Structure formats: structure tokens, C-alpha cells
């Protein structure tokens, strides 16, 4: 074969075909495989939804058939047993206060660490590294000391008991995202504003904050999800029923419903669906936040 020209032509043809079809277009088999695996991974959710419409005796004796009647009895019992409103109110009040404070303070510190001039560059880098080190500290080692601190401040069973540790555990992740974003963002606009005589507070509020809105959205949604799911701190610091959060409520299902499996399943379904909807709406930010934390952290 007259090697060079022949090979390049045939590869050019292949390339043209490929471009026409898109990146690497899957065959029918690939598509079926992708759907099957997705179905397999979705299976526990689907199983849960199926069981939620079955009576307890059906769950135990005949779990595979479709429900005899489409019965919402389990959901009625779940709603009667659980105070859903209370779980959501507590969790969302805690989340709202936590996120507003943490975004404000970590934005301030990240701004200082990326834009302001320190006496020594070394100091600036050490403070940044110090704040990022928290990414390596797992929550379980903090539980007992935080419990002691909360006890000595007289804060057990208050919103503040969870708000403070939630702010604290968000600092490293937020610093990572904010400093990363600010470093990659040109500072000319800010400098022009300063030359025009803008003070520090106005600068932050009306020049910088609007610029970083996309990363604030990621931080906001990611931390919302964290607080929604958080369990170890909640179980350690909250024992009062009126302060119960969503995760804490779920952990009590087994006790509350005893052997009412239908009730447990229906209650779980009621709590999982809003979460899946939240994920569906904000998936871009959530996936971005989780992978950024993993890859850059």
C-alpha cells in the first residue's frame, strides 16, 4: 500500500462520518445497555415506590405483584404519624440561616485572600492552606467536642446548635470554590471602581458580589443539599422532638412505625421525592459542586 496518502484519506473519511454522527455515536446495543444499567441503579427507588402502595400483608407475602388496589393508606398513615411540616420547617430554617451567614463570611475571607495585599505573600498562602485543610477533617472526630462546646454554651436543642457547626464545616469547601473563582477573574473592574472612590463595603456589595453570582449559586445549592442530608451532628445535638430535622426524623421511622413497613416506605417516599426534584432542577450546580470539591480539593 502506498501508505501515507491512503491512510490519511481513509481516516479523513472515517473522521467525517464520525463528526456527522456526533461524538462517538452508540449502537443500538450500547443504548440498550446504558438504559438497562440505569434501570438497575434506579431499581431500589422503583422498588420503594412499588411497595409504598401495598398493604403490610402484601409486602410480606406477595411483594412482587403489582398492588391489588392503588391504595394510599400507607401515605395517610405516614402523614398522620409524621409531622412533615415540622421536619421541613426546622431543616429549612437552619439551612437558610446557615447558608446566608456562611456565604457572607467565606466570601469576605476569600476576597481578602485573593485580592488584598498582605504584608507577606507567605502569610497569605498559609492562611489559605490552613482554611483548606478542613477538607481532610471528617465530621465524626468533631462530634463529641462540638457536643461539649454546645453543652457549655447552653445551646443544645436550639437551631444555633446545628447552625454553627454547619457554618464551620462549610468553610473549607466554600473557600476552595470562592478563591478558585476569584483568582481566575480579572480585577480591572474592581480597580476602576476603587479609583472612582468606591469604599470597601459598596465595592463588595455592588461590584464583586454580582460578578461571583454563578459560584454563589453552586455554593448555595451544594450546602443546601448537605444540610438536608446531614445526620451525625443532628443526632448528637438534638434530642428535643420539636427540633427534629429531616434526617433525624427518618432515623426514627423504624421505632415510630414499629413493624408498619408500609408506613416506613411511604414516609421515606414522601421525603425522597422532593429531594429528587431538587436534584433534577439543580443537577448542574450539584454535580459541579461535588466534582469540583473532589477534583480540586
Amino acid at each position, binding site marked *: 500500500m502506498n501508505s501515507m496518502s491512503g491512510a*490519511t484519506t481513509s*481516516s479523513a473519511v472515517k*473522521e467525517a462520518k464520525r463528526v456527522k454522527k456526533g461524538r*462517538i*455515536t*452508540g449502537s443500538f446495543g*450500547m443504548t440498550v445497555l*446504558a438504559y438497562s*444499567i*440505569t434501570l438497575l*441503579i434506579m431499581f*431500589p427507588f422503583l422498588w*420503594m415506590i412499588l*411497595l409504598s402502595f401495598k398493604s403490610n400483608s402484601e*409486602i*410480606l407475602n406477595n*411483594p*412482587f405483584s403489582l398492588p391489588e388496589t392503588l391504595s394510599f393508606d400507607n401515605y395517610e398513615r405516614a402523614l398522620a404519624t409524621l409531622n412533615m411540616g415540622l421536619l421541613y420547617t426546622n431543616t429549612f430554617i437552619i439551612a437558610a440561616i446557615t447558608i446566608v451567614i456562611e456565604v457572607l*463570611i*467565606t466570601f*469576605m*475571607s476569600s476576597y*481578602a485572600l485573593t485580592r*488584598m*495585599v*498582605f504584608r507577606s505573600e507567605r502569610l497569605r498562602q498559609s492562611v489559605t492552606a490552613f*482554611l483548606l485543610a*478542613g*477538607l481532610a477533617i*471528617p465530621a*465524626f*472526630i*468533631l*462530634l*463529641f*467536642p462540638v457536643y461539649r*462546646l454546645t453543652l457549655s454554651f447552653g445551646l443544645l436543642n436550639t437551631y444555633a446548635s446545628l447552625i*454553627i457547626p454547619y457554618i*464551620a*464545616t462549610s*468553610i473549607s469547601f466554600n473557600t476552595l470554590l470562592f478563591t478558585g473563582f476569584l483568582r481566575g477573574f480579572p480585577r480591572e473592574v474592581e480597580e476602576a471602581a476603587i479609583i472612582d472612590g468606591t469604599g*470597601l463595603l459598596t*465595592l463588595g456589595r455592588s461590584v464583586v458580589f454580582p460578578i461571583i453570582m454563578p459560584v454563589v449559586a453552586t455554593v448555595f445549592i451544594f450546602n443546601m443539599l448537605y444540610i438536608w*442530608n446531614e445526620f451525625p451532628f443532628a443526632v*448528637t445535638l438534638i434530642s428535643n422532638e420539636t427540633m427534629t430535622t*429531616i*434526617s433525624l426524623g*427518618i*432515623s426514627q421511622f423504624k421505632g415510630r412505625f414499629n413493624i408498619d413497613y408500609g408506613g416506613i416506605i411511604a414516609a421515606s417516599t414522601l421525603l425522597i421525592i422532593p*429531594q*429528587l426534584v431538587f*436534584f433534577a432542577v439543580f*443537577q448542574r450546580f*450539584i*454535580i459541579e459542586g*461535588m*466534582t469540583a470539591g*473532589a*477534583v*480540586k480539593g
Partner: protein
Amino acid sequence: MIWLSKRRYILFMLIPTLLVYLGYIIMPVLISFYYSLTEYTGIGAARFIGLDNFSRLWQDSLFWISLKNTLIVLAVALLLLLPGSFLLALLLNVKVKGGNAVKALNFAPSIVAPILVGLIWVFILDPQMGMINVILTKLGLGRFALSWIGGKTLTPYSIGIVFTWQMIGFLATIFLAGLKMIPRDVYESSSIDGAGKLQQMLRITIPMLNETVKINVILIITGVFKIFETVLLLTNGGPNHLSEVMVTYMYNVTFTSGEYGYGMSIATVTFLLTLIFSLIYMSLSRKSIEE
């Protein structure tokens, strides 16, 4: 920026974050280390006993069981989750109809509250009413209907499966990001040189994903050492603490038995074991930031 960089401005910007961070992250870690050197029951003052807790740990068979179980979960995750998430990423990299929905659905288990994950899997793994054993019994395979959870041996393997389910979409997404970073012309020029698909996989894809693999391995390691809620819900460490993992054992010793000093020595050891890996993780990430 020098105009606004007066010392009091910098302090004003940094102090709120530093205060919370020092008070609720750094100080608690140090307090944990301190309590691990004491005997403390919550009544009176903590009594300093040096390294006694650690020598007790060395002889505590329950501690070794919890470590063994944690390592079994880790082994299952490395053997199943790591290759599984890689294969899933290869599949997700192929363009199929509704590809974005497929990606999102596979990711979904990792955003569900771990406590809820535990609860869902009770209905699959439970020896009496769980799905697996009900199927096996109906098929006349009752002798294979084992105690997937709550028995003497199988719980950590089951926890490994649950962990795999939770993480697979998340790790696949990271693999996918790695795959997208491999320039396409590398594949094109290698196929001109006559490289087959398998050769491309072994010589190009896997070597070029080196960093991504390392990140995922570290995520698996740190993730496994943090497992808590799923074990709590599936077995609560039982029967007789046989299915404890390190964090549940630490939690039970600390908050159920009230042996705060001893509990903190378990927390310290668990933390140190993960820290070794976390340091590797940090040095890897430093590289990827520079790039």
C-alpha cells in the same frame, strides 16, 4: 488593591471565618486528641492516662472487628466500585438518546440522604422481608437465602454493595470528566498507526486517566472510613457488635457507653488512618490545580 489593603480591613474580612473555623474545627480536633489521652465519663474532670486508651484499643477485639469490617467494605469498593464506575463512565461517554437524563439518573443515589439509603436497603437486604430472600425463596432457592445483614459474616460485604450503589454515578462522573480531557487526536493518530480498540484502552485511555484514578481511589478510601448512617440503619452494629465499622463503634463507645476518652482514641486512630490517605490526596490535587 493596595489602597483598600489596610491591616484593619484585612482583619475585618478574615476574622469572622477564622473565628468559626478555629472554634468549631481546629479546636475540636485538638480537644479530641486531648480526650483520647484521658479517662472521661462526663462526670467530674477528665483524668489524664497517657496512652492507656491506645493500648486498650490494641487488645480490644471489637475494635479489630470494626477495623476488619471497614477494610472488607474498602476491598469490596476497590474491586467492584472502582472498575464499575470506570465502565459506567465509558458507557456514559458514548452518545445515546437521552444521555443527559441517563447521567443524572445514575448520579441520583449519591445525593440521597445516607440515612434514607440505609432505610431503602433494609427492604432489599433484610433476611426475613427483604427482596433478595423473598425472590430466592419463591424460586425454591431458599438455601441461598442468607443473612445478608444482621448475621455473623455478610454485613460488611452488603455495606460494600450499598456503598457502591451510592457512589458509582458520582465516581463515573469524575471518570467522565477525565475521559473528556484526553485529546481526540491521540486516538486518531493511534488508529492511523493501526492500534485496535483494546490497545487504545490499555495504552492510551487508562494511562492518561492516571490522575483521575488516584482521585477516585482516595475518594473511596476517605468515603469508606466515614461510613456511618447506612450501618446504623441496617444493623446498628449488631448482633453483638459483629458488624460495627470504625465510626459506628466510635459512636457507640462514646455516646451509648459514655466512655468519652476511649471513644476519642478510636476517633483519633480512624482519623489518622484516613489522614495518611488524605495527604496523598492533597498532594495530587495540588498538581491538578497547577495544571
